[in-house]
């Protein structure tokens, strides 16, 4: 849209204008209009449904793991039911397949696409003020690649399962008779899905910004998405080739990773972690973006240290490529390499810390509404800080020798991935749900879900830190009786966490049925997506949006009569159309 079409002096008095037009959900009907849609919002919604399904499946598998580990010798998979379901499988084998599929599904099918592909797809063009992403068809193909990858995973599950761990370490993965090829093919396809999403976002943000949307007027969610996309584009191809070589290793024995043909398993680990460490940041960086939005909108206060947060996202993206060796400290990597990787690992903790400080500082002297998204955001900061700080124990070599591959690691990454990414994903969904579907949900229900998730999560994973430091190795189907009390505590926590997640799902579904209609701007946000109606029209904006400061809350007021947030007398002028989109502004204001 050209800024020239905006009449100069145009003022948005009330962004909650009623829509005269159909929105993106209603503008065309029928299942085919969804299946072949090129609209980023619909693709985002389809992704949201897809990843939620994957999350449900992965979550059920996780509950299976926790229930099995309730007793030292396992109680679930040696139960008669499972013996009847899979008579030729030992309980340990079932356990191994369950934890493998839990990991693989959660990583490849849920966390990696969750925020970038579901929320990102919906939000990036709207926040940017664009009509769509740069390559709508690539976007749709990315979704169908995701579906294709998921089909392969399900086929692997139904064929003969997968028992390699999500890491596919050779030579286990080259010798096991489970469906490694199906699963790696699935992961390969999902890799391309992820690459296409990332590529699309980079191009969109680079070339589709409307006049006035300078780099430093972009909401921080876009910075985070941009950083994530850099990683997706740079790291994922290496996973692709690694998995291809693994398939070749299994079928033709190419002898690169398999020691039986004089290949080297440590080389596989280098290849794998060159992708999979940055992938950790694919999972967490978008979460940072969401939290930056949530904290500032619900504190109704300008984000503190915009530039530090923006730059730290980019810094994390780049640093994430030089720390992969910390997954291999005990693997037989040479001592000098190990020490170098340890030193590099510490550098990546600095930008993460910066963000935490900035978020807390944003809340200082704010006007905080303890809404569901805000409570999730606060839970995120609490949990992520624990996750981040325990990373220090693992990055330090002397202690990592003891803690590597124990439950300490399990607890650490769940604090980051679940306490971080999943919690922020939930927070983000609650935050943008009114925008996506145009309905408000029950605030009380949302708060209950947040409380249950917080309590359940901590009860599940705090004991696992102690289990780990006491020496309980991970991926054990059975364990020494001395660990039983902590495991039981963890299982109770998992049940509470599960209930919390179901409450969240229930609240959202109920809102579709009997939620009240959402205003355009239910939280008083200043980014562009709150400028269009809820749900947005097909081309996102009925009138070309006036790009302003994404964190300027000064002109947004609560109107008790209208019972919604309104924009009062915008004091800024319309950005002159001569400003080329590519030129960065001099300041964020």
């Amino acid at each position: 849209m050209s800024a020239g079409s905006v009449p100069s002096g145009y003022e948005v008095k009330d962004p909650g204008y009623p829509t005269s037009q159909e929105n993106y959900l209603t503008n065309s009907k029928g299942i085919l209009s969804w299946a072949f849609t090129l609209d980023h919002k619909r693709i985002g919604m389809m992704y949201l449904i897809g990843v939620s399904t994957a999350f449900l499946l992965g979550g059920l598998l996780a509950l299976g793991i926790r229930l099995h580990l309730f007793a030292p010798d396992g109680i679930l998979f040696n139960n008669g039911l499972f013996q009847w379901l899979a008579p030729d499988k030992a309980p340990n084998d079932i356990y191994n397949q369950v934890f493998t599929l839990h990991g693989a599904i959660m990583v490849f099918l849920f966390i990696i696409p969750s925020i970038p592909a579901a929320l990102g797809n919906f939000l990036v063009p709207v926040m940017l003020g664009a009509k769509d992403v740069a390559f709508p068809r690539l976007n749709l193909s990315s979704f169908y690649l995701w579906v294709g990858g998921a089909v392969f995973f399900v086929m692997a599950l139904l064929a003969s399962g997968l028992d390699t761990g999500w890491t596919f370490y050779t030579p286990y993965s080259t010798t096991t008779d489970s469906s490694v090829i199906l699963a790696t093919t699935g992961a390969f396809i999902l890799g391309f899905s992820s690459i296409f999403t990332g590529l699309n976002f980079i191009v969109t943000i680079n070339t589709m910004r409307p006049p006035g949307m300078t780099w430093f007027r972009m909401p921080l969610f876009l910075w985070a998405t941009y950083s994530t996309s850099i990683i997706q584009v740079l790291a994922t191809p290496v996973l692709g080739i690694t998995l291809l070589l693994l398939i070749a290793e299994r079928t033709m024995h190419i002898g690169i990773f398999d020691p039986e043909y004089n290949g080297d398993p440590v080389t596989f680990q280098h290849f794998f972690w060159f992708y999979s460490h940055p992938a950790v940041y694919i999972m967490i960086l978008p979460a940072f973006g969401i939290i930056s939005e949530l904290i500032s909108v619900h504190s109704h206060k300008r984000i503190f240290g915009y530039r530090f947060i923006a730059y730290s996202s980019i810094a994390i993206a780049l640093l994430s490529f030089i720390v992969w060796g910390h997954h291999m400290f005990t693997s037989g990597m040479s001592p000098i390499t190990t020490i170098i990787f340890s030193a590099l690992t510490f550098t990546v903790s600095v930008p993460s810390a910066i963000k935490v400080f900035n978020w807390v500082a944003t809340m200082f002297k704010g006007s905080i509404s303890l809404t569901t998204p805000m409570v999730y955001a606060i839970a995120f900061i609490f949990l992520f800080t624990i996750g981040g700080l325990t990373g220090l124990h693992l990055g330090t070599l002397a202690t990592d020798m003891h803690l590597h591959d124990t439950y300490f690691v399990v607890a650490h990454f769940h604090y980051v991935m679940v306490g971080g990414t999943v919690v922020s994903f939930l927070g983000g969904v609650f935050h943008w749900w009114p925008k996506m579907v145009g309905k408000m949900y029950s605030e009380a229900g949302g708060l209950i879900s947040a409380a249950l998730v917080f309590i359940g999560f901590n009860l599940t994973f705090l004991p696992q830190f102690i289990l780990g430091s006491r020496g309980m190795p991970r991926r054990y189907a059975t364990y020494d009786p001395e660990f039983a009390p902590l495991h039981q505590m963890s299982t109770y926590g998992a049940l509470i966490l599960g209930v919390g997640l179901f409450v969240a799902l229930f609240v959202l579904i109920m809102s579709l049925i009997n939620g009240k209609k959402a205003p355009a701007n239910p939280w008083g946000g200043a980014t562009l997506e709150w400028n269009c109606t809820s749900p947005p029209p097909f081309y996102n904006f009925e009138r070309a949006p006036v790009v302003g400061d994404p964190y300027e809350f000064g002109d947004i007021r609560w109107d008790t009569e209208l019972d919604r947030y309104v924009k009062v007398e915008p004091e800024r002028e319309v950005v002159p159309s001569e400003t080329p989109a590519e030129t960065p502004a001099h300041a964020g204001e």
Partner: protein
Amino acid sequence: MSAHENAQEGYDFAHPLPLPLLAGTFLVLTLLTVITVAQASFNFGSLDVLIVMVIATIKAVLVGAIFMHLAWDKPFNILCFIGSFVFVGLFIMATLFDSRQTAKDDIPVLDDAVVAAPAEM
């Protein structure tokens, strides 16, 4: 938007390269191929790999700068492309560095040790 007006005028963003430049580049590339094949029949010892890689890199730069139009492209595109090689370098260097460190005495060739042993004795 102002670009609309420009769009009517013609080559506002197309940048056709002169034919002699393209042909010249092709000739230089062919010449370099001949050189790299020819040098293979001489033995420069450990410099061999270096020489062929330098020649290959010159060729790659020519293809990139002229055929791929990078010399006149947007800085960001150049950054992307060059940047990718930085990450490739990072990946290969670190992995190679580690495998060089450990290769020396920790990696027996399994079939030598086990089965070929009697042949040695």
